[in-house]
């Protein structure tokens, strides 16, 4: 089972750190507010949303979901939200919405009980929240069960016996989204996923690096200006310039200038 699932699992064994902050294991989400900012980020990221956070608070204290003590739970929830806002973390709107809902329920509980409905059941303002918490928890557990099931390719292999093609050989077809799927698998295997994040801007730089290398191939020295097509606009010039710098950094091209104000030349580092 993955660490991330363990993070918020109700059966979290004591002694298993939920996070590491400055190298120190954090064994449980602190109840007071002395939460180091870095830990807050980790804590926030480890919850799938306000329902998940609420469930955690309830389960951790072994409270009865059907009879949630609204005052303390609301106070704890608000403490998290306040701390996160104080650290100016981008907080999803859903967290704030939940805060409003909790306060509303709490205040309704303080009011005199409304008259009973037709069936004689008292109208508990918590009922809808309880229903949502339970429904979410049910799906959360179901997701865990699904993840445990053997999956094709991940946990078992299909057969791949060759049939010799009599007709002409068909080449595999690939579409762009297949590349995205391939990248997902690479990410999953890489220990530091952030390292391999590729942004769109970065991609245009990489594409331009390839263009420059192709352009320089077979030419000895190319004037720096020759690499820049002024008609393509400022964004392109910037990307192109960054591409040259990146190529220099990676040792793929050499840039030289004999003296100040002399022409600048670019050539392949390796001819």
């Amino acid at each position, binding site marked *: 089972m993955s660490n991330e699932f363990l993070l918020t699992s109700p059966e979290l064994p004591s002694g298993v750190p939920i996070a590491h902050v400055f190298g120190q294991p954090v064994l449980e989400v602190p109840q007071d507010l002395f939460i180091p900012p870095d830990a807050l980020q980790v804590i926030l990221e480890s919850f*799938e949303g*306000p329902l998940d956070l609420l469930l955690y608070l309830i389960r951790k204290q*072994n409270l009865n979901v*059907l009879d949630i003590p609204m005052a303390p739970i609301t106070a704890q929830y608000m403490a998290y939200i306040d701390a996160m806002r104080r650290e100016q973390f981008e907080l999803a709107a859903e967290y704030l919405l939940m805060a409003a809902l909790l306060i509303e329920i709490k205040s309704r509980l303080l009011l005199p009980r409304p008259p009973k409905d037709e069936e004689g059941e008292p109208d508990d303002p918590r009922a809808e929240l309880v229903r949502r918490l*339970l429904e979410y928890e*049910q799906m959360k557990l179901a997701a865990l069960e699904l993840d445990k099931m053997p999956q094709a390719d*991940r946990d078992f292999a299909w*057969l791949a016996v060759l049939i010799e093609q009599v007709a002409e050989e068909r080449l595999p077809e690939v579409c762009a989204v297949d590349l995205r799927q391939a990248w997902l*698998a690479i990410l999953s*295997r890489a220990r530091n996923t952030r390292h391999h994040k590729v942004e769109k801007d970065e991609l245009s730089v990489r594409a331009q690096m390839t263009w420059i290398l192709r352009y320089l191939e077979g030419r000895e020295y190319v004037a720096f200006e020759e690499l820049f097509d002024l008609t393509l606009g400022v964004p392109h010039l910037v990307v192109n310039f960054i591409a040259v710098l990146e190529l220099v950094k990676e040792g793929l091209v050499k840039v030289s200038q004999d003296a100040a104000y002399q022409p600048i030349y670019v050539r392949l580092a390796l001819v």
Partner: protein
Amino acid sequence: MSTITDLKYLKIVLETALLTSAEALSVSALKKLFTEDVKAALINDLLAEIQQDWRGRGIELVKLASGWRFRARAEFTPYLARLTPEKPPRYSRAVMETLAIVAYRQPVTRGDIEAIRGVSVSTSVMQTLLERGWVEVIGHKDVPGRPGLYATTHKFLDDLGLVSLRDLPPLADLGTLVLPEVQPESVGETDAVPLDDEADNVIEQER
């Protein structure tokens, strides 16, 4: 050479088709192997025999949602993983919870999923499940905006080795889910959550 009336030969043809097929084969697909009319009952008998023949070997013949297919026994995965370390990724909770909701509550709109999870569902999560071929849009809900209705595919069941949605792990009973260890005088209040019946109904509808 043997003729098709020869049962042993017929069985070899079936086995060969299953060994070489890149997808699960239904009995009606298997019937197409032969120009003669081979009865489904006979094919089923032979499939059972083939399944029996492979007991205790490295591969097994399994029945899936879209038909029969050979696969390597899970026991051998550690060996095979040394040859091909590339595997599909392990999905995050966001992806798996979305998948679970589609699987157990289908057909659902993205709005339904968001209502259950309590957070917005990013496009990339849905895209990942669609691209993996586990989830598909099977229609549109007749409400403003006509949101797509998502359901799981045969491939999802095949890839999890299941014949039908009924084989999914049963949902935790909401009643037992909530009872804290030290329990309760508040049994009367459980009426506030009539959800377990509802969950049963959803599965029933799928049958």
